[in-house]
């Protein structure tokens, strides 16, 4: 029985699976189809690869909804994964001078791009037809330029494909040859191979207006030399024939230096797009996306036609209790503002109803909150698709394991949901307690300990707010104030490691004081159930002093609680 919530890397999915699972976002499609260079920023699991793949020619062509589109051959998206063994090769670093290193880095890149172009086009019926009358001429041109024999047996694109395979083989064989430390003399570049190839392809009328969009995936996996090469292409002046859409993680973003030492500039050479969406409530952009993803997976993989909220029902006791506390807060609001002030009463319910429930649970010796329900899962995901699928996968797996027959899983009982949420939350704390140095390259043992202490104190602080704070008891995000502190850069170093481990995310929003954009931090909400907190949170950011955070991390000193803390009430924005 296939688990509908498997979250393996999108690169490993079939065309049909991509079409089945992806939920289109027209905002991104518009940007990806433009002629501008774009950097697509998103944390691991936020759907970067899926977005690029969905907008590639190969997938578009197979999509019955889109393959009749008139611009199918006008905007040709070529997916170029960078997390392949070819990109991980390091032999060229053995060359003594940087110039040669750069040339081989570009050579591998260019081979991958050319292969991706040809692989995307060569088996498409319309393309084969369109090339028929031009095949011989193109083959002769290419054969002349690159001094390769004209193939009589194969088409132009097939010949290029075979030649690229051979080039890739020969290069790697020579560079790995134990008896040979020579430089590879036949190295290719964007201007010696890719651009002439595009020009040749555009000789075919079907492609005369085509714009090639290189969808460069996982650019954070590129080494410095490869990044410099990529940036040089971004800085290229003429983008009538091609543009680059580069997907990269937010942490360890590639540098912006080109191979000639220049820089690329945002706004001038490229535009940044943040893939993360507002995710504050079930009706937010992310809430709707999450609902569509789960519904589509249930339908396509498990043949279940159910709303996600019915597949992941809320524990009746939790639902009932929340209603009870809503009523308490409503009465309190009416007493405070009067029945006519409906908005104020609604705000009061929003702020306090859940807080009262979780506050009472925190103060009592009651068992763990029965965390359950689809909305709870959306909150726990912290706005990251992979985080949404992770507990769902384990819940489904637990149900399959407990079943004695082959009958369909029709829903995940609240008890299973609670148990898995607790287990995944505990596992996340265990990672912190064991030390992130066990899994993150840049993390030392001392930093691992500090990050644990920082998170431990942050959550204690949020708990104290839940119990005592008068206006924003459920705030679970923070900004850093008083940053002119000697430890600020070290603190940011710790936060970056936490981001690399997906225990912390950053968002950008408008600062309350001066209306400028500011970065704020969102701890992974899966950390909250173990400590009995509400993953639903509140539209508020706690302003914490750099020094207090540093003391919490280094000295395990509790973060001071101040009921009058300066908090910002603002919605996160789509584009940072």
């Amino acid at each position, binding site marked *: 029985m296939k688990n509908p919530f498997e*979250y393996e890397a999108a690169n490993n999915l079939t065309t049909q699976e991509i079409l089945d699972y992806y939920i289109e976002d027209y905002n991104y499609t518009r940007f990806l189809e433009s002629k501008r260079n774009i950097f697509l920023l998103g944390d691991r699991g936020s759907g970067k690869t899926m977005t690029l793949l969905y907008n590639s020619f190969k997938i578009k062509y197979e999509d019955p909804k889109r393959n009749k589109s008139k611009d199918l051959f006008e905007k040709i998206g070529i997916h170029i994964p960078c997390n392949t063994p070819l990109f991980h090769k*390091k032999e060229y670093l053995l060359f003594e001078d940087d110039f040669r290193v750069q040339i081989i880095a570009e050579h591998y890149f260019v081979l991958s791009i050319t292969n991706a172009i040809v692989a995307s086009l060569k088996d498409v019926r319309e393309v084969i037809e369109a090339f028929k009358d031009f095949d011989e001429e193109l083959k002769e041109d290419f054969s002349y330029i690159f001094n390769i024999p004209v193939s009589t047996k194969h088409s132009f694109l097939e010949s290029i494909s075979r030649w690229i395979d051979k080039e890739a083989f020969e290069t790697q064989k020579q560079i790995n040859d134990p008896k040979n430390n020579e430089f590879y003399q036949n190295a290719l570049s964007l201007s010696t191979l890719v651009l002439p190839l595009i020009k040749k392809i555009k000789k075919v009328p079907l492609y005369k207006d085509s714009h090639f969009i290189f969808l460069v995936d996982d650019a954070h996996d590129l080494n410095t030399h490869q990044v410099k090469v990529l940036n040089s292409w971004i800085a290229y002046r003429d983008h009538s024939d091609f543009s680059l859409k580069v997907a990269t993680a937010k942490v360890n973003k590639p540098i912006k230096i080109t191979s000639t030492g220049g820089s690329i500039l945002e706004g001038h050479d490229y535009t940044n797009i943040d893939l993360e969406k507002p995710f504050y409530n079930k009706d937010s952009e992310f809430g709707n996306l999450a609902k569509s993803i789960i519904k589509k997976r249930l339908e396509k993989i498990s043949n279940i036609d159910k709303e996600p909220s019915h597949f992941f029902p809320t524990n009746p006791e939790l639902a009932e209790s929340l209603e009870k506390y809503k009523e308490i807060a409503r009465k309190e609001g009416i007493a405070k503002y009067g029945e006519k002030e409906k908005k104020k009463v609604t705000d009061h319910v929003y702020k306090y109803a859940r807080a009262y429930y979780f506050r009472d649970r925190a103060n009592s010796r009651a068992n763990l909150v029965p965390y359950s329900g689809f909305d709870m899962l959306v909150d726990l995901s912290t706005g990251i698709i992979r985080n949404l699928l992770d507990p769902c996968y384990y819940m489904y797996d637990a149900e399959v394991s407990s079943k004695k027959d082959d009958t369909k899983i029709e829903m995940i009982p609240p008890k299973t949901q609670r148990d898995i949420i607790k287990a995944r939350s505990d596992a996340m704390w265990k990672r912190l307690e064991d030390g992130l140095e066990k899994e993150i390259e840049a993390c030392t043992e001392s930093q691992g300990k500090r990050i644990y202490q920082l998170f431990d104190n942050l959550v204690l602080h949020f708990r104290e707010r839940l119990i005592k704070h008068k206006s924003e008891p459920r705030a679970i995000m923070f900004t850093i104030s008083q940053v002119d502190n000697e430890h600020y850069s070290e603190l940011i170093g710790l936060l970056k490691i936490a981001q690399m481990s997906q225990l912390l995310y950053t968002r950008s929003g408008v600062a309350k004081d001066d209306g400028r954009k500011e970065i704020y931090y969102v701890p992974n909400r899966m950390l909250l159930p173990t400590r009995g907190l509400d993953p639903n949170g509140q539209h508020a950011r706690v302003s914490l002093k750099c020094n207090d955070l540093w003391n919490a991390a280094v000295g395990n000193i509790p973060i001071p609680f101040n009921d009058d803390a300066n908090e910002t009430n603002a919605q996160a924005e789509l584009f940072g």
Partner: protein
Amino acid sequence: MRNLEEGNLLFIGLSWEERCFLGLKEDYKRFNQTSKVIILYNCKSEDDDNENRGKIAEYCLKREIQTEFVELDYSDPILTWKKIDSIVEAHKEFIKKPVIDITTLPREITWMLFFFIRKHTARIYYLYHSPEKYSSDWLSKEPGAPRLLLKHSGISDLNKPTGIILLTGFDEIRTRKLVEYYEPKFISLGIQSGSNFNNKERNSKDKHIQVIKGQTNFNTFSIDAFSRDHGLSTINQQVKLMGDYNIIACSQGPKLSLLSLYRSYLANTNIALCYLPSRQYNKEYSTGIGDTVKGEIEF
């Protein structure tokens, strides 16, 4: 001092582990014609300042065996590669009967030595000393990013997906790290058979599966690195089964499996050898010395 031309050249890795010095004594029992010991050590750890350094120097001096301590930076594979190249090149006249004690040498360094030594001779002797016991606590921390071994990065086919063959060890976090880093379409987990050093519990199949479940497709196979061929035929079988992938092969299991993985690489040079570094090892990593395995590889 002994004449270099007549004796064996022995390579060892300096470590604070007891079996480093105890192992050298065992090596000498088996190769008493040893004329020079080349001791490789990591300048980024406390290896250059441990007790074993003095003990080795004194032991060799008494027996008129030449010694050379070679400083390497294990975190920099390019510099290390060049240094090992130069040290082997400087001894090329005497590399007739090279012996490598792999016990406390990192796998990457051992493979580099194989690469350079096999330019000059077709046969290498190797020795491995098990510890009496491993620490029951953590063994290593602060893992670096996985990396492909220089000149052994395989021949990647542009149209094939990535597949991994991993000979698993005691630390399942490293299994997860490998999957997260390379995002393979498929991983084949080779689990060491037997219950030595509490292997069944510390290297259980379930522990490794648990950390990669849902992220990639996988299968498992059983391997015995302590068998006569150190599991070579089993690895070759897996390589054959994974012909549709660009294979990245990694050894985290018993040290002896690095030998079979290397031999498998020589027979299938399209696969890539991968090393997963670690910056910190438990000072109590192992105690004492156990059985010794001695053998030879013909290239």
